[in-house]
């Protein structure tokens, strides 16, 4: 749980406008969203609806034009650049469709990199990296280079990098990319497990089947949140409801 027991991510009436005057594009218009520890929220919407903008704002990779973004109670707008960079390295994990693995580093080195950048010693970082690789089912493959791995294994390395250390907020943008349906499902399974262990997750997707893994699904249209599903009941209730 967070120190305050509040949400891990809190977007408050967030606006993001690109450009100005007649050429202004309103990517997000007054979106509010909270994500609690242990909660996975999926964001759905057509291309251009603002899904990815929401994710980059949540991750502190971009700033809102108006409104406020809080991660574990800290308002990103009042942090200086160094503080923001530290928060991103330590507390936020990103999984993008484009994996951004460094080809000249092994799987373990790729995963350890954010920790080393954060000043963690090489040995400790390597230990944490191997643990993260084990969590995603890649025990024993830490010494391989990305081009020696399958697409599914590379995606798992990218997820291990997003989960390594004590990430409290995991942000995923179409994380199953071009993976086949079984491998894609395994990726979502990993994300779900980390969230069940106490992280907060945001999953941007246009695939309804992937959004099905979330506790809540919000729908964006033209930068506005138009609807959201209510939080789910527990499995026991679902089972009794399905007549099993």
């Amino acid at each position, binding site marked *: 749980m967070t120190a305050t027991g509040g949400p891990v991510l809190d977007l408050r009436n967030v606006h993001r406008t690109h450009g100005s005057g007649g050429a202004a594009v309103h990517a997000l218009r007054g979106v509010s969203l909270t994500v609690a520890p242990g909660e996975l929220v999926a964001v759905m919407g057509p291309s251009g609806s603002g899904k990815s903008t929401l994710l980059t704002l949540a991750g502190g990779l971009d700033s809102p034009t108006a409104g406020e973004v809080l991660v574990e109670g800290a308002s990103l707008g009042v942090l200086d650049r160094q503080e923001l960079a530290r928060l991103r390295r330590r507390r936020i994990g990103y999984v993008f469709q484009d994996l951004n693995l460094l080809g000249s580093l092994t799987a373990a080195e790729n995963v350890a990199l954010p920790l080393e950048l954060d000043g963690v010693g090489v040995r400790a970082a390597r230990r944490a990296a191997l643990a993260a690789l084990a969590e995603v089912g890649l025990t024993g493959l830490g010494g391989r280079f990305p081009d020696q791995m399958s697409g599914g294994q590379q995606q798992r390395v990218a997820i291990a990098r997003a989960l390594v250390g004590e990430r409290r907020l995991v942000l995923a943008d179409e994380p199953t990319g071009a993976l086949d349906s079984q491998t894609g499902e395994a990726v979502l399974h990993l994300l779900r497990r980390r969230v069940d262990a106490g992280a907060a997750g945001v999953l941007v997707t246009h695939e309804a089947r992937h959004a099905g893994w979330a506790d809540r699904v919000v729908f964006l249209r033209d930068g506005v949140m138009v609807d959201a599903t209510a939080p789910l009941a527990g499995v026991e209730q*679902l089972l009794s409801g399905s007549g099993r």
Partner: protein
Amino acid sequence: MSIRHGLLALLERGQMYGYQLRAAFEESTGSTWPLNIGQVYTTLNRLERDGLVRPLPEHEGGQRPYEITDAGRADLALWFATPISRADRPRDELSIKLALAMTTPGVDVRTVVQAQRSATMRTLQELTRLKYASDKPEDLPWRLVLDAMVFQAEAEIRWLDHCETSLVRYRPAPRAGPTRHAGDVEHADEEVHR
């Protein structure tokens, strides 16, 4: 799908008598659901009994037109506003509902689409949750049944997305309904364009 709500939706366009209702119903549903005239009159009688439609004086040709009442409008609005539950859905109801929503004055089709998408998404989440909880090897048959339902729900959401995209480009041609007034046509176009 109740024929009842289909007829109410048609009468919302304007007053009609039995044969006109049958023809309009078949036109709305692309003739995928043929009705016999007996079903139409039985349903009209029940609707009248429940105060949802009211008969008007007979025409010279002996045809008795019906019009929708305020209670009928409220009943129709409730049907459009309520998502269909997957559990007890007759197969075609959703597609027919959308087809009728597009031609019924005063109905915002996109709201109907979004309400259904949320409800179906919710079902998909529940199915996924059940699948996640059934991870033992001996659960495989049940997981595959769940997968079938997951894919059906996914297909429905994709179809709803497609409907929404198509609606953005939709510009209906003016059409002369059986007993529609000119004012109704304008009103209907305005609603569909929202």
